[in-house]
C-alpha cells in the first residue's frame, strides 16, 4: 500500500500522528511529513486507522 496526503486539505490536526507515530509527524511549521509512505505488516492497520481518523479526510491509501 501507499499513503498519500492531500496538502490542500490537511490542517495539521495531528490525529494521524497520534494513531500512527511511526508513519506521520506534524512539523513545527504545521506541515505533515509521512515518515513511511509504504508501510508493511502491522503498520498497515495503523495506516488505515489514521486515514479513517483524519478529521479533514486528507489521507488516502492506494493499494498496490
Amino acid at each position: 500500500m501507499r499513503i498519500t496526503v492531500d496538502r490542500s486539505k490537511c490542517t495539521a490536526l495531528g490525529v494521524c500522528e497520534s494513531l500512527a507515530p511511526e508513519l506521520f509527524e506534524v512539523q513545527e511549521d504545521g506541515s505533515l511529513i509521512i515518515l513511511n509512505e509504504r508501510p508493511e505488516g502491522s503498520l498497515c492497520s495503523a495506516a488505515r486507522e489514521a486515514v479513517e481518523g483524519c478529521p479533514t479526510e486528507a489521507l488516502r491509501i492506494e493499494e498496490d
Partner: protein
Amino acid sequence: MEKDGLVVVGASLAGLRAVESARRLGYSGRITLIGAEEHLPYDRPPLSKEFLASGEPVDPVFRAERALREELGVDLRLGRYATGLDCRQRVVRLGDEEVSYSALVIATGAQARTLPDTAGLRGVHALRTLDDARSVREALDAGARTVIVGAGFIGSEVASAARKRGLPVTLVEAATVPLTRSVGSEMGGLLAELHRRQGVDLRLGAGVQRIDGSGSAESVVLTNGAEIPADLVVVGIGAAPCTGWLEGSGIDLDPRDKGVLCDSTLAVNAPGVYAAGDVCHWISDLFRGRLRLEHWTSAAEQGSLAARNALSLDDAKPYDTVPYFWSDWYDSRIQFVGEPHADDIQVVDKEWEDGKLLALYRKADRLVAALTVNRPTLIMKLRRMIASRASWQEAVEFAEEKVRN
C-alpha cells in the same frame, strides 16, 4: 412496520461514522439513519472557522446523498425527529411511524443553550447548525457590529472571524476568567490575551441582563448596566444533550445534563442499545470516571465503536481516549489533550511574542493534560505520553528538551 436492522438516530458525525463502520465490518442488514435536520450530514468545526471567513462559503457536507443511499445502502430519513423509544418492543418512534431495530445507536448530540426571552428577536443566533452559521455569516457580510455572549471556544472563533473582517467585536463573559472548565483558570486568562491583542472589547465578569430591540437586536444590556450596540448577537453559552425523545423510555440519563449514561463499552441500560458522541457519558478507565466530551475526535471514534459493539454481541470493546480538541483563533492554533482537572500547571515555554505556548498539567505524579498554542509538533507526542500514563518527571524532561531544540 419494518423488522430488524441497525437504526442510528442522529445524522451527524457520530451517526455517520456508525453507519460507515457497520458496513466496513461487513454488516449487510438494513440500516436506517434518522436525522432531525433537513441537511445531509455535515461537519461542524468549519462552521465557526472557514465558513465565516469572507469569500465563498462551502457547505461542509461529509458525503453526497448518492454515496449514502446507494454505496452505503442507507435508508436515510432526513428532516425526521425521533420522538420516542420503546426498549421492550425495540422500536423507535417518529411521530406516528415506528421503526424497529435489533441494534440501536443513539447519536443525537447536543443543542445550543439559549438566552431566555430572546426567541423571535432577529439578529440573535446560537452557532450549532449549518442554518445558524448561514445566518451569522450573512450578518457578518452585512458588516454587523458583533456582540458575542460567552467566551468559550465557539464564541472565541466567531470573535476571530469577525475581527478578521475588521468588524467591531465585544466579547461578554459571565465568569471572571474564560475557559476555566476546559483549560483551567490560569491558562484561560492567558488565552484571553489573544483577544485583547486583536482589538476585541473583552468584558469579563459581566452577565447579560437583556437584549433590546424591536423586531431585531439593537443592543445588549449587561448586568453591570453597560449597554452595547449590536446588529448581531452570537450566543455561545454551551450545549445540552438532545435526549428529550428518550424521556420515559427507561434509558438512564445523567441527572444534571440529561446525557445518556453508558458503560465503558458505550452500552446503554437496554439490550442492543449503544450511544456515541456529544450525547453520551461513558466510563473511562484511563481517567477513572465518567466523561462526556464535545469533541470531534471522540464523537467520530465513538460512532464507529458503538455500531461495532451493537452488532457484535459477544465481544464488546471498551472505549477510551485521551480527549483532544483544537480551536483556531486569529493566527493561533490552540490544541489541548487530556483532562484539565490538575493539581498544578507548569508553563514550560511561553514565547508569547511569537504566539507560542506549551503548558503541562500534573495530577499526583502523572501527566494528565497539555495545552499548546502554535506548537503542532509536540501535542500528539504528549497525548501518547498521557495515554501511556507517563510520569510527571518524564513529561517535563521531554518537554524541556524539545523546547530547547
